[in-house]
């Protein structure tokens, strides 16, 4: 499996999408930096992390991850590499799982990039009060939210296998971002899979009447359904040549 992951990294070499994702990961801290300078939105590193993480997990990550998933899975169809890879031979299940793991690794990289750039932009903005604890807490919160988000993206894997074009992923991601913004303050927000990760990681879920376990359940069910349908579809469907 390590070789698979290593090769997935090689596949990303000179890839514009990878660079784009890095820019996407830096964008929320950068916007916070602008907000600090222009509106004095954050006065401490703690606020910078809290707000930056919220923008990342509740808004940017949805669109970004939808594009990443579409690229990771869809490119094998669009560049006709699936027929090359599957005749090596590789087990279809193993191939799919390696893609899932690569997606998680990619998310971890972006999490690090976002957290480190938050610190850098914070210092450039002249914020004070930086401590290692603030960094670790902010990073852990973002990491936790992103890992939960990763689980909620398995239905997108199925969609990217079904429609290999990246445009539907972008439209879907943008649509879902809007949905997130709309339902965020609603009482039923803990039932929406793509809102739950932020609510749980930030602790805001405590402000809702719904138990946190319900949100975990929603995330888990979403993951299992997405994983199952993507696995069945990928292993049973003929490869288009």
């Amino acid at each position, binding site marked *: 499996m390590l070789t698979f992951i290593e090769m997935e990294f*090689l*596949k990303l*070499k000179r890839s514009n999408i990878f660079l784009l994702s890095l820019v996407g990961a830096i964008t929320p801290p950068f916007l916070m930096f602008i907000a600090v300078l222009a509106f004095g939105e954050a006065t401490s590193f703690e606020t910078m992390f809290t707000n930056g993480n919220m923008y990342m997990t509740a808004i940017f990550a949805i669109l970004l991850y939808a594009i990443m998933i579409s690229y990771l899975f869809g490119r094998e169809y669009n560049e*006709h*590499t699936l027929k*090359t890879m599957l005749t*090596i031979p590789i087990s279809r299940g193993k191939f799919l799982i390696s893609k899932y793991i690569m997606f998680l690794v990619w998310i971890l990289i972006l999490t690090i990039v976002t957290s480190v750039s938050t610190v850098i932009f914070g210092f450039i903005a002249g914020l004070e009060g930086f401590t290692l604890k603030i960094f670790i807490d902010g990073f852990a919160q973002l990491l936790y939210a992103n890992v939960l988000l990763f689980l909620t993206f398995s239905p997108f894997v199925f969609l990217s296998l079904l429609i290999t074009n990246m445009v539907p992923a972008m439209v879907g991601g943008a649509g879902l971002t809007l949905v997130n913004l709309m339902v965020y303050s609603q009482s039923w927000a803990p039932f929406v899979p793509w809102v739950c990760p932020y609510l749980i990681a930030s602790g805001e879920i405590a402000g809702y009447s719904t138990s946190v376990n319900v949100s975990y359940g929603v995330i888990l069910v979403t993951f299992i359904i997405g994983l199952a349908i993507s696995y069945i579809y990928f292993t049973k469907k*003929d490869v288009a*040549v």
Partner: protein
Amino acid sequence: MVDYVIETNNLSKKYSNNLVVNSVNMHVEKGKIYGLLGKNGAGKTTTMCMLLNLTYPSSGEISLFGKNPKDYSKEIYSNIGSIIETPGFYENLTAYENLKIISKIRGDFDPFNINSVLKMVNLENAKSKKYKDFSLGMKQRLGIAAAIMHNPELLILDEPINGLDPFGIKEIRTLLKRLSHEFGITILISSHILSEIENIADVIGFMDAGVLIEEISKEDLHNRLNKFVEFEVSNSDLAVNILKELGLKENKDFTKNDDVINLYSNLEFRDKFNTLFVNSGIDVKKLNLCEENLEDFFTRFVSNN
């Protein structure tokens, strides 16, 4: 007993109500080059995809190296190299990096092997060039490099000469013949270009509308090609009359086209006909014993079946 590397039994593929491969019984002998010949849409690619487990059969059985590929998938497919239509590689990566990915995942990565296989297909100078900058011919050659890189015992090549220039076609033909004759690699190659299949294959499978009509060895094929005598004469009308007086029927035993008369029966009497023509004052400019070409044979064969 004949050792078949590929054997199928009533192999069929149906998409909705469209039967694209219909009860194909294919037999590819070890060490032979088997040419699968058919028009576009005859079912060649689908058949090959089923052999490679890219497409699942609707019914029928496949045996590769005498084993069921469902039970010995890894063992069997590790021994096969393939190209299905245009080869698929990662466009942002170089030729070397693409081959590295394949060999790493297969578990036999060896930089020397990659370099030597790139040299074999004349891509050693393009190994650092990105795949998206390759010409169609270069892509095809990289596909062949990927297919033979792991020294497979069986090559399944779907239209491998597509996009190649005449020099490229000749190179690939020579390479495939070498792989078969020197290294004993069995090759299943498909094409709609009849001359190519005729040039390279030991056995030809004729496929049309999803049906494998017949498998014919090269020797048998030449025995079955129609032979005829071509006369080029100064007075074809008079020559036709002479033949008719001898009881031969136009459009059955012979045909006339301007000054050319093609004789399809009584070929052993061609010298007698020639004497009769000359004695009747007809100049015989040309007399050839000809063989039907594969194109005509294929057309006749498919329409008869």
